[in-house]
């Protein structure tokens, strides 16, 4: 395990008014509190199967989704609780889905890795690494052919960049000048395999740039930098020139999944990244700038916690789907859309 260079914590002025500044903080807190609760519920066996936590990476989804519009398509990975939540999927529906209950956003059939919401153009919750990239390319192709406004934002980890699907999708999207926003969440580990152990080219922007598209690298622990960079990238895509690749450098504070003993990362490295935590560094900046008081922070955090508690109660109360319905939704029933 070679020593990773960990940059200084995010700092500098936050160029937002108090409303936006606090809204961004609340978004991150909602993800964090929801997932802390999910981990706890996993211990209680209320949530089963795979559970991949986004804790530490919240600034990425928070900044990125804020740059999108309701017309845009969003497609993400199996580590997508935060993306679904900030796309507008109610926390109640997400929590119920993690429980496997009928009021879940995928009616319980998908679980943690397969959150979907058609009304919000949220296309999952795709659990095959790199599987979403060709799908996003196709969504963008449909929009181009039909003249519909909107881009397709595709989230994937850096591990996906070793898959053939990454290369094929990049080639198609650039070749056909499709409106895709490729958002690489580089948390430096493909499950347990460090970047340098899986990529011959560890400069991901250089690798993606080989396809001849604009690339941007941004500190994914800095929600301010993320929103600014992704806004710029999205504008470029909307101008019709084709896709843009954004590398969002981040770090997960928890293990890959609840089954992962996390033996492959040095303790000092995790601790060093935690000093860059997206929520506490941002909170400190807001306070230093007079955009947030401790009382306001506590109120925002309490609101997030209350939403979480309510979602757990909702999920507990939601019914199980009857076993008689087992074979539903394999094929589209006549008359359905």
């Amino acid at each position, binding site marked *: 395990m070679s020593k990773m260079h960990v940059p200084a914590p995010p700092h500098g002025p936050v160029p937002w008014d108090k409303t936006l500044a606090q809204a961004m903080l609340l978004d991150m807190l909602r993800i964090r509190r929801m997932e802390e609760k999910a981990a706890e519920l996993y211990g209680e066996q209320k949530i089963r199967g795979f559970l991949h936590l986004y804790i530490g990476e919240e600034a990425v989804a928070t900044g990125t989704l804020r740059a999108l519009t309701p017309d845009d398509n969003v497609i993400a990975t199996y580590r997508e609780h935060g993306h679904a939540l900030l796309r507008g999927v109610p926390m109640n529906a997400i929590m119920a889905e993690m429980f496997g209950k009928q009021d879940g956003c995928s009616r319980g059939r998908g679980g943690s890795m397969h959150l979907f919401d058609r009304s919000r153009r949220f296309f999952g919750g795709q659990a095959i690494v790199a599987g979403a990239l060709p799908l*996003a390319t196709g969504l963008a192709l*449909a929009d181009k052919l039909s003249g519909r406004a909107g881009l397709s934002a595709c989230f994937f980890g850096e591990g996906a960049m070793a898959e053939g699907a990454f290369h094929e999708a990049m080639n198609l999207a650039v070749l056909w000048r499709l409106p895709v926003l490729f958002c690489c969440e580089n948390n430096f580990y493909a499950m347990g395999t460090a970047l340098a152990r899986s990529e011959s080219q560890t400069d991901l922007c250089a690798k993606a740039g080989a396809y001849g598209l604009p690339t941007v690298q941004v500190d994914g622990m800095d929600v301010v930098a993320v929103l600014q960079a992704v806004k710029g990238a999205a504008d470029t895509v909307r101008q019709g020139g084709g896709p843009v690749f954004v590398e969002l450098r981040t770090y997960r504070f928890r293990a890959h999944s609840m089954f992962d003993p996390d033996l492959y990362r040095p303790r000092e490295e995790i601790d060093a990244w935690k000093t860059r935590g997206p929520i506490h560094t941002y909170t400190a900046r807001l306070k230093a700038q007079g955009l947030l008081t401790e009382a306001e922070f506590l109120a925002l955090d309490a609101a997030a916690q209350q939403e979480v508690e309510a979602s757990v109660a909702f999920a507990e109360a939601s019914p199980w789907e009857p076993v008689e319905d087992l074979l539903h939704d394999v094929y*589209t029933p006549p008359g359905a859309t």
Partner: protein
Amino acid sequence: MGRRISYRDALREGLREALQADPRVFLMGEDVGCYGGTYAVSKGLLEEFGPERIRDTPLSELGFVGAGVGAALGGMRPIVEIMTVNFSLLALDPIVNTAAMLRHMSGGQFSVPLVIRMATGAGRQVAAQHSNSFEGWFAHVPGLRVLAPATVTDARGMLALALADPDPVLIFEHAQLYNTEGELSDTDSVDLCSAQVRRTGTEVSLITYGGCLPKALEAADTLAGQGISAEVIDLRVLRPLDDATVMASVRKCRRAVVVAEGWRSGSLAAEVMARISEQAFFDLDAPLARVCSEEVPIPYPRHLEEAALPQAHKIVATVQALLGPAP
């Protein structure tokens, strides 16, 4: 009598009509445009519909099949051509893990109205890596509909129905059929759920599909010359299987031979036989039999390739063995 047409031209007519009927329909795949289609199915369509709708793709089966799934999710009605089933293995993930499962795992929110066409089968001395019959693998997967048109009427008519289906449909075109000719039937109904009786008989059911249908019909002719009446069932829809038509024929003939080009072990032929055993066991007068490909990659030399594949004479011999020596 209907109009005489080649299987290839029937497919092209179906494609042209689909493109004319719905602006959401487009065709994409390797060499479907400038080249005119590897099997010349889409010849002339680029000139008629332009490069946006007759879309040449790079050699990226995983990429463009996945993009087809995405385009279907995005409201289009893509027809994706994979050059041959052999290359579909590079696209198994978007077909099986995504297209087939998306409706289910999204709790019914997202159907995938995608049509994928591909050539299948052996018989042209193109050796092991270009001669596979994997349609049975796809027929294993819930969420997919799998078609194998063997007649010009089905070749022409199935595409429109496949496009009207809200779920993913795979169409397998046996490479040996493209040059065959037939008469378009005004009376045969085309649907995506029923098997068809292609020849009526009373003593043995030959149950087959796709490229083996001509072989089964030839065998039935030979058998008729020997005084044996064979019925020929064309499954034509491999998922969902039409059990009712198969069982009606088996109950009438009391003997059945399944003829299919896939390797016999773990095959679609095995599935059909299992269903007959489950549903019509006590109507049988003889053990079930099958004629499949030998368990060997398809060899290049003609005599070995022929020996590896189902052939009319093998079907005849199998039926003769079932009926036993003449009394």
